[in-house]
């Protein structure tokens, strides 16, 4: 799984991907893969072209769908982590805050983000607001938990030493607690982002005017396998892209972990 710089590994990897694509081509040519349930490569390319540069699908072209989805993901992600990370840090720092907030948190935590969808729709309809609410819960829980564990994981001598050196108040938070908890915070942000993507696709599958989930929903309704596949590729690419951005930010914010 780790990206080693082993050339034989690279070649077997390429070979296995090529083999799967080859099987796909041969399988659809010979009719071994039923086109009713899985598209042939030309059908997939045609659907991709339609989505990319053609007349579009499900009321929009791919960039419109992706922009809509990414916009909602970012809104939900930032709204949730802006509350979740500080709350988690505070709960990790103060036993009193933990005792007060933890019971409420324990009530919310076991409810999967997707289970908020019907309530969000009843309350806010099929607008963007409902989706942001769902994404908020998807991203909130992991960001709280991991920021909390991050603070708890800081070794006590480090905090005692900083105190002894007269580091106090805001500067203790900024220079000791946040950097100490940062690796764990980023683990949480990564989970939050994944949760947002999943929750958004689900919410859009249940009702949306635009977005990648809408493409999947419409393609499922029209029984258009090539478009289902094209929609899934779009979901994967957006997931990959957003994760890459987060990886970049993570490396930038923790230069002391360069070797990692």
């Amino acid at each position, binding site marked *: *799984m780790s990206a080693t710089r082993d050339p*034989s*590994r690279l070649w*077997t*990897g*390429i070979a*296995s*991907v090529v083999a*799967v694509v080859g099987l796909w081509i041969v399988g659809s040519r010979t009719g071994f893969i039923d086109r009713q*349930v*899985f598209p042939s490569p030309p059908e997939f390319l045609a659907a991709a072209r339609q989505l990319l540069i053609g007349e579009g699908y499900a009321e929009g072209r791919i960039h419109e769908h992706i922009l809509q989805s990414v916009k909602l993901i970012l809104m939900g992600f930032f709204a949730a982590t802006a509350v979740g990370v500080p709350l988690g840090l505070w709960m*990790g*720092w*103060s*036993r*009193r805050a933990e*005792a*007060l*907030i*933890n*019971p*409420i948190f324990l*009530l919310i935590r*076991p*409810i*999967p*983000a*997707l*289970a908020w*969808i*019907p*309530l969000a*729709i*009843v*309350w806010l309809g099929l607008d963007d607001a409902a989706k942001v609410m769902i994404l908020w819960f998807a991203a909130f829980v992991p960001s709280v938990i991991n920021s909390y564990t991050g*603070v*708890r994981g800081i070794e*006590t001598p480090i*905090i005692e030493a900083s105190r002894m050196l007269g580091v106090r108040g805001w500067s203790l938070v900024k220079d000791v607690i946040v950097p100490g908890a940062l690796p764990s915070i980023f683990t949480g942000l990564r989970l939050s982002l*994944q949760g947002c*993507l*999943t929750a958004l*696709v*689900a919410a859009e*599958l*249940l009702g949306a005017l635009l977005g*990648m*989930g809408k493409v*999947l929903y419409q*393609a*499922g309704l029209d029984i258009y*396998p090539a478009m*289902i596949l094209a*929609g*899934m590729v779009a*979901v*994967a690419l957006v*997931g*990959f892209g957003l*994760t890459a951005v987060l990886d970049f930010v993570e490396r930038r914010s923790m230069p002391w972990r360069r070797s990692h």
Partner: protein
Amino acid sequence: MGDKLKRAELMWLSLAGLLIFFGVWTFAAWVELAPRKFLPLPSQVVERGIELLTQPFSGQTLQGHLAVSIERYLSGFLLAAAVGVPLGLLMGWYRWLDNVITPLFDSLRFIAPIAWVPFAALWFGTGIGGPMMIIFAGAFAPCLINAYRGARFVDPKYIEAAQVYGASGPRIVYEVLLPASLPSIIAGLRISAGAGWQSLIGAELIAANSGVGLMMVRAQGALDTSIVMVGMVAVGVFGMLVDVALRGIEKRVQRKRGH
């Protein structure tokens, strides 16, 4: 960190937290911040839940819907574990298998499990097959990754010892790697269990002919917020029970190893 709290203070603060939560909710519902239909009192949700035990909603009682969901969940989760864990262990031992599977796995990794719903419905229908596939899509990756990591980080001296005694590849996987990576595997199962359960609820909301998810989506259509909330509680409680059970197993395994 702050000093350890006294027991009394801890209990008092925890109680205050719960009171704030239910207090704000009750108050908001009581002054009808939103119409009762949209924001029921906590007591109304409880009443509705009890009612649902005897009166069916959209074809079944609450426990009937739950039973369908749990059956799907267990079959999908067990399938994911039965494929993912052995595959992960084998990949941890056989380099060529790792090299072949990893790129395929990596290219599928970024597809949100729920995005498989249209294909799942097309291929396996909306009965047990389609939702099972979505659970599988959600639960498979953590099973595989953790088994693989567990197998890769086994102390080499155990493997060397087994090799000295002439153990074959399959025996090493089964008798050395499997027991040695058990803690990692169980941690993976815990993640899988949560992901699979959430995926199932999503699948049932979107495309299923029964289950708790369907009950919730029908209640949403009927603007019956109490039933939606009953569904959320049921989903949360079951998910928590599974997690508690797996955590119990995890602790036992760790204790046996003297951790």
